């Protein structure tokens, strides 16, 4: 049986791509299912998001199409299968055996609450939304949530975006990046020090690749192809052990964007036979074919010239009472203490 051996493969080889079919470490097939039902159940279990209507035929060639509807109906009646709507196609997702048992023993309201929380997946659901969707009374919801939490079926989570909102998700799930904020967050707090360190390292690395070494005023020609890509920068960061956390490519790109906003580096189009350009019309979303953006450091300001900003060099530029200072008012340049200090030699 082709499908069975497939799932076997998944089990044995953890590195195999599990983009769609998910690894099931221990799948308990509910008893009292017919052979075909069991087969369907096992196949569908490989898809966390549910198996699509269109995939059925190719995934389970053993079952004739006419039979499939029957099987689906009986499974869902027994509570082992949910029907989802993705766009305008249907998808079928299994309900785990132990879960099916738990749900079956729940009261009506608790089940409603549970289903909504489950539907929210790893994003979690806000109690307010929960109330809106289930149409239950607040007290009822609170009671249900308590009961579910006690049974360790759901857990409360904190969302970095809305720290004040009370949110819930299934107990066994781990919150999505959206919720935790990703690698830059430690305990839902932005880890600024960590960010700064990694940013500095990135900048140094890019800088070292942007200008020829040992010649202070030298530059590379426009056709220079040694500017690093985000992938290369990520590899450097991981190799140099600056971060103990595994930073994803997206994390690194977010950080590089910050460096761009700070004017420290800029994004360049890769070289295509000499004609290049930091063309502003290229929006970030247009992933330039397969080519990756390259990053170039901006030259640091030269020592000796413009080391300070002209305006803030004179006292008025950083004066806290600038807006109140007039020619002959109570605060005025003639009796100004900031100048007094500045002009002391």
């Amino acid at each position, binding site marked *: 049986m082709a499908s069975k051996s497939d799932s076997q493969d998944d089990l044995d080889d953890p590195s195999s791509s599990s983009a769609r079919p998910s690894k099931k470490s221990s799948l308990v097939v509910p008893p009292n299912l017919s052979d075909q039902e069991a087969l369907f159940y096992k196949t569908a279990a490989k898809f966390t998001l549910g198996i699509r209507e269109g995939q059925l035929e190719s995934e389970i060639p053993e079952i004739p199409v006419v039979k499939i509807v029957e099987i689906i109906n009986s499974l869902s009646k027994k509570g082992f299968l949910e029907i989802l709507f993705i766009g305008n196609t249907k998808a079928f997702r299994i309900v785990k055996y132990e879960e099916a048992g738990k749900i079956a023993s729940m009261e009506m309201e608790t089940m409603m609450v549970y289903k909504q929380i489950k539907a929210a997946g790893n994003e979690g659901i806000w109690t307010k939304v929960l109330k809106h969707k289930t149409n239950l009374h607040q007290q009822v919801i609170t009671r249900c949530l308590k009961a579910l939490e006690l049974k360790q079926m759901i857990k409360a989570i904190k969302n970095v975006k809305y720290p004040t909102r009370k949110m819930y998700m299934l107990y066994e799930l781990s919150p999505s990046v959206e919720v935790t904020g990703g690698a830059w967050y430690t305990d839902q707090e932005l880890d600024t020090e960590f960010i700064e360190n990694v940013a500095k390292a990135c900048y140094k690395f890019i800088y070292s690749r942007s200008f020829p070494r040992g010649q202070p005023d*030298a530059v590379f020609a426009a056709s220079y192809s040694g500017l690093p890509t985000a992938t290369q920068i990520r590899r450097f960061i991981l190799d140099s052990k600056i971060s103990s956390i595994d930073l994803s490519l997206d994390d690194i790109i977010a950080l590089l964007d910050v460096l761009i906003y700070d004017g420290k580096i800029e994004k360049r189009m890769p070289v295509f036979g000499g004609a*290049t350009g*930091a063309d502003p019309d290229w929006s970030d979303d247009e992933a330039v074919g397969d080519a990756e953006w390259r990053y170039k450091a901006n030259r640091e300001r030269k020592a000796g010239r413009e080391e300070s900003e002209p305006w803030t060099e*004179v006292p*008025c530029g950083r004066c806290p009472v600038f807006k109140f200072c007039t020619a002959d008012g109570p605060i005025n340049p003639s009796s100004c203490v900031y100048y007094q200090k*500045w002009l002391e030699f």
Partner: protein
Amino acid sequence: MAFTQRLCREIIKDHFGPIVERSSRISPSFAHNSFLQKVANVLLNKGRLPCGAIALFAKLTQKQVRECLVVLIQHNIAYYAEIAERSRIVVYYEVSEEEILLRIRLGAILRYSGEWFGKEGALVAQHILRNELVLFTKAFTNMVRERFLVAVQAQDSISAKDRAINAEAAELEKLLMPPTAKELKNIRKLRDDRADAEYHSSVVIGMKRKLAESVGNQAKRHAPEVLEEVEEEFYFRINNDRYNIRFRNEVIVNYAVDRINRSAGIVTKTMLDHGEEKMRRTKEDKSPAVTAVQISQLIPATINLETDIVLESAEFTANSLPSKQQLVHEYLELLQTDSAGFLRKEDERGAGLYVVAFDKLRDHLKRKVLDSVVREKYGSASCRLMKILSEKGKLDEKQVRAIIVVMVGMSYFTTIVVRMALATRFVISLICVQKLALLPAKETRERLATLGTQGYLELQEVPKAADRAPSRTFYLWHVPLNQCYATLLVDLYRTLGNIRQRKRDEISARSRLLDKAQRQDVIENQALLSEEEQEHLRLLNETIAKLDVGELRIDGLITILRDI
């Protein structure tokens, strides 16, 4: 506005006030100077006035006022306009704030005239500025030819606006019937074109020239070998536009050196120098076009471009060095790909024509000034937030306004729906902001609020509920760039005013000592000053120098914000 006026007053005080009076022969008497200040102040405060009214406000006689006006007009600070009121013609006078503010740069003008045209050049500029007789030296001729000095014409004393109105009136006069909107538009366009053509003509008025092709009415024709001469019946004045062009070009070259390197600066400078003759205004979009070949021919052979560029192509190995033309090409490529957008390729055919993209550079440099001010004053995180908002938050203002206008006519329920739609979009974008900036939410909010109160951000509040409670309101931020530049410029003017006032105070506090130091016998014999006095003098000089440097650097920012 009040602060620009104040700076104007300070400038007038500086240039025509007692200090000037002491050291120069600009005008005959001290009394005259204080009158002049009074007249200028009245005009600054009240705007356009006829002579009688000025006399009234300044508490002077009409004769005195007229004398002052002559001086002001001579210095190109004041304009007049003849306006027919019923049967008689009334002459109104006004001072031009812009012209006065341009005088901040007189020091720089003097210094650079010296640098560009030798000692004589500085002298010429100085004499012209003081309205003194000038000898027609070689430097003078050069300055006229290169338009650093221009002949004064009668219309220079009429403000540009009045000139435009007069020209339009003259055209309208010719029509028999009141003009249609289209005719009016045509007339205006014609008028503007003509003014432009005049500005861009290659004829130098007031000079007998060899280069002019079209027959100018004053200029006589000469064969090319004949030396150019300045016509003696003309008066000349400093051409601020021309100086500003030079200043702008210098800013750009320096920036190329900073951003890329010395050789890139040389290439840029060569391009700008080449086209300088054809540049008339600083507000142009681009420089005259040049080909790569032209540039490499223009760069002197003594300059070595290759030491500071690293070429990786296999063709350039150690034994076959790249040619100069190849090097120039490489630099043009670098300048073109730089995100500051130094160069633009005009013509894709063949080797291509290159122009310096003033429009893009202008935006870039202005933005850089704003960024560095925000960074210095409020920290780099605030600067980052502003960048993100101005890049990602473009959506807001206009759409919001449009939607709010629409909302007025809708039922309450629809309003709420629209508001929600609008708001969710922005809430997402605010979260985006803090996410993109990698800043904690609280800090983001605080920084945005600070920038908002300082006028660097504009806030649009969209209340969700009728009670307009802050917790139920969405805040939409927007970066009004042009307004930021304007605010910044006024702040800089204000600072200059402060520095000047302080400088005047420092000088007048030690006026006795200064008087003594400038006595003939003391100049000859420094020993007449006590040790303490000398120490004080040294301190005063250092103080002034420090203030002057501050002033100069701020003027550099003003150049970028205003004149580029």
